[in-house]
Each structure stands twice: as structure tokens, then as C-alpha cells.
């Protein structure tokens, strides 16, 4: 493993705000499944999860399973950090655009610096740290898929 390899095992923080509007996301995440909020009125996804559609005000929103497939929209290799993250520099933060058309902020791990690029195909997975809720992160999609 070279110094330019960005490993999994990034920190998490205990206690994200879980409320009735986001509970289903976390329940699915604990099973290792990514679900996305979907507006039945607009027939489109939105992000981040909330109990109504921020485009049309409709409360007719549900959850749809995601393929987890996406590509890097933008990224940065972070060299200066604070708190629990100090011991993990450098690490990669990114915006990933999912096949479903929404872009979310995340970390990309298990990737080599030489491999990192805008457009790199990635796949979602959840990292679990003891006692904390699962964290959505991405890693390069195996080329055989």
C-alpha cells in the first residue's frame, strides 16, 4: 500500500440527527442498503432526505433503492484537517453523481492517487465504526462490472 493510496476506515461522528423524516434512510443503511428520497409528484429524486419535496412542496414522497453506482463529479485531496480526521490525512472528499441523477457529498476510499479523476466510476458502500451510524462512502467500481 503506497503513500498515495487512500484507505477505508475514515472517522465517523456519533449521533447524526435521526428523525421520522430520515429514519427509513438509516434503517436501510444499517442493512447496508442505500435508499434515496423520491417525489411521487415530480417523479424525481431529491437530496438530502426530508419529509417533503423541496421542489413542489408535496408530502407524497417515498424511498427508492439506489443502484449505488455513480461517478466522481469533483474531488479534493485534503491535507489539513482537525479533530479525529488529523490522523487520516491525506483523505479524499468528493461530490459523486449517482446514476439516479442526484449529486451528494461524500468520501472516496480504497483508491490510488493516480486513479483519481473527475468521471471515475464509483460504487456506494457503508462504513461502520463501533457504535456509530453507518456512513455512506464510495470506492472505485470494479472494471469487470
Amino acid at each position: 500500500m503506497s503513500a498515495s493510496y487512500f484507505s477505508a476506515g475514515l472517522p465517523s461522528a456519533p449521533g447524526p440527527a435521526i428523525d421520522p423524516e430520515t429514519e427509513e434512510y438509516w434503517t436501510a443503511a444499517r442493512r447496508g442498503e442505500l435508499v434515496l428520497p423520491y417525489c411521487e409528484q415530480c417523479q424525481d429524486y431529491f437530496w438530502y432526505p426530508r419529509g417533503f419535496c423541496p421542489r413542489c412542496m408535496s408530502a407524497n414522497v417515498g424511498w427508492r433503492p439506489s443502484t449505488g453506482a455513480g461517478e466522481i463529479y469533483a474531488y479534493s485531496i485534503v491535507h489539513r484537517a482537525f479533530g479525529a480526521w488529523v490522523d487520516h490525512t491525506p483523505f479524499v472528499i468528493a461530490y459523486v453523481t449517482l446514476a439516479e441523477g442526484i449529486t451528494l457529498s461524500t468520501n472516496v476510499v480504497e483508491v490510488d492517487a493516480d486513479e483519481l479523476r473527475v468521471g471515475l466510476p464509483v460504487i456506494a458502500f457503508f462504513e461502520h465504526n463501533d457504535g456509530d451510524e453507518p456512513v455512506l462512502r464510495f470506492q472505485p467500481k470494479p472494471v469487470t462490472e
Partner: protein
Amino acid sequence: MTGSMKGSAVIVGAYEHPGRTLPHHTLPQVHREVIFGALADAGLTIDDVDGFFCDSTAPGYGPMDLMEYLGIRANVTASSEFGGATYVAYVGQAAAAIAAGTCRVAVITLAGLPSHAATARAALDTEPGPATAFEGNGFRGGYGPVADYAMLARRHMHEFGTTSEQLAWIKVAASVHAQHNPNAKLRDLVSVEDVLASPMVADPLHRMDCCVITDGGGALVVVHPDVARNLGRKGARVLGYGEAQRNSLQGKVDLTYTANRRAGELAFATSGVTPTQIQYASLYDSFTITVLMALEDLGFCRRGEGGRYVENYGLTGKDGKIPVNTDGGGLMNNHPGNRGGMTKVIECVRQLRGEAAAALQVPDCELALAAGTGFRLAARHYSSVVVLEQFS
């Protein structure tokens, strides 16, 4: 700002705290020094003030405590929060209050002491917004705003071929300007090579792509034109103004432009001025990429051409192009309280009065623009733009 409000107010007082590290000051003290400084500059006293605009970081009960401390009795008061965009937005909001007859002499104040540990603690104690609360378990921990702006730079590089060398020219220009500002936090002349050799903070942004962190502040006095005429002091008439916010757009992220685009459209439309008429611009410079995108979003160059523009022309007024941030900007001079909007307006006032550094004074500067942005351009953020005209 409707047509009837165009030119409804004049900035007659502007004061930038000369301090950059103030270990023994309290926040109220800094507010007092900058407000009294701006009032003295205008030729007014605290008794004249009937409008008061501070930000959400004012201690205690915010404006209540500060007005008691200062002896201000106001008819209109605000303590909004648009980050660094707040003070540029307040110029427009104060002008609107003056046009509506709510007040005649408005004070806008900024004070910040990021070198004090208490300030850093207070920032961490705030209740997170809904997006941050949701993402707070690990999506976005552990890094400052640099990494967000780094993603903006990365996408710009991907879409338009912008390079780190091009971004570095923005810092070079700021360092050329800072040579003429004895109060500037940093005064060493910087080369493109220096920027690229400085440590990477969040790839592709180096340390020298980032603004300084300073204590200090500034204040503005915005008045009814009748008050301004009686004072007989040169100033800056508020011709036009725009504000806009932008965010993650329900997940449809597009990092290739910012809220400056909409705020600029509004400011140019209300003032009846076009970008080519502007002779001096103060563009928010939290990072080099912030300036580059403002040049594009405000129409000083075409979309995607910001990199080539700064490489070819710099920002020092070469080849008839517009000079930007002649005080050295946030990149060299001052970024008090991690908020740059106030100093942006102050340098516009200096230019319009003919009081900028002699070597950098735009001859008979009649039209200037100040643009502020608040929070993180890669996520939810705010922009405010004012167009100002020489008043004498």
C-alpha cells in the same frame, strides 16, 4: 432596489481597523473603534445614528447589547447572517431603509477576533442546519472551507482547463497591490512559483491560494443624500444592488457558477450600468478560485475564460482591464473575522474618493463594484453585489 431607490443613499463614512492581531481587544471594543472611526470619517456622531446593522456574531443579545454599549438609538436594526456577504448586502438594505424613510443615518459594523479561543468555540457550538445534521455523522467532518473551494477549483479545471498556475496569478496581483498597503498582514511580493511551492492544504488549493486569518473589522456609514450634501465629504452613492442565494439544488449540483451571477444581474439591472463601465472592482477573495469565478459570474470575462483572463491580464489594471482588490484583498491584506465583505466596500469607497494608494488609484474613478460571498460556494451560499458611484 426599484428605480425610485436608485441613488437613494450615499456611503459617507468608511473605516478599516488597522489591527490584524488584537489579543487584548473584546468584540464590543472592536465594534466601537470601527464605528467611531467611520462616524469621524463622515463627520457625524453617535447621536446622528438611527439605523444599526450588525451580524449574528455580536455578543450577548446582539444588536441590543451593542446599541446599549455604544449609546445608539435606532429606528431600524438588523443582525442578519450571510457570512462574508452580509456587509455588502447591508449596503443595499440600508439604502432601502433610507429610501423608505425608516432611517437617515445607518451604521454597518463588522468585528471579529478569530485569534481568540472563545471565538472558535462559539462557532462550534451553533446548532447545525438540517443538511449538516443529516450529513454530520461523517460525510463532511474534519476539514475547513478550503476543501469545499478545492472541489470548486477541481470542477473548473475539469470543465474549462483552468490550471493552478492561472489561479496563482490572482495571488500575485494581490501581492503587487499589498506593496502599497502598510497595514497589510502579508506584504511580501509573491510569484506564481511561490504559490505552487506553498504547502497543499486541499488539492488543488495551496496555502497561498487561501486568504489570511485576521482579527479586526470595519464599519460604514450610509446616509440620505440630503445628509451627505450637508457634510460636504466625498462618498459613494449606492446605484444598484442585488442579493442571491444558491445551494445544492435538491441534489442537482452544478459547481460551474455561483450566486454572484444572479446577484450581479440584479445589481447591474437596478443601476443601469454594464460590467464594461465599472472602473474598479472589489471581488471577494477567500480563495483564488473565488475571484476567478466572480470575474466570470459578474461578466468581467466570459464563462470558462477566467483562467486565461487572469493569466493574460492579471488583476492590476494592465491592458485597460479592471484592477481588482487594490488594498491587497483578503489574500494579502485583511479578512477580519473570516468575513471579507466589509473591506471590499471600504476599498471601493477609497477608490471613488480618490483616496486609494497613490500608485493604485484609478484616475477619476466614477463607478466601482463590490461583491461579497458568504459560506461555502460548493454548497449553500449567499452573494451580494453593489454598484457604487462617485459622490461629491
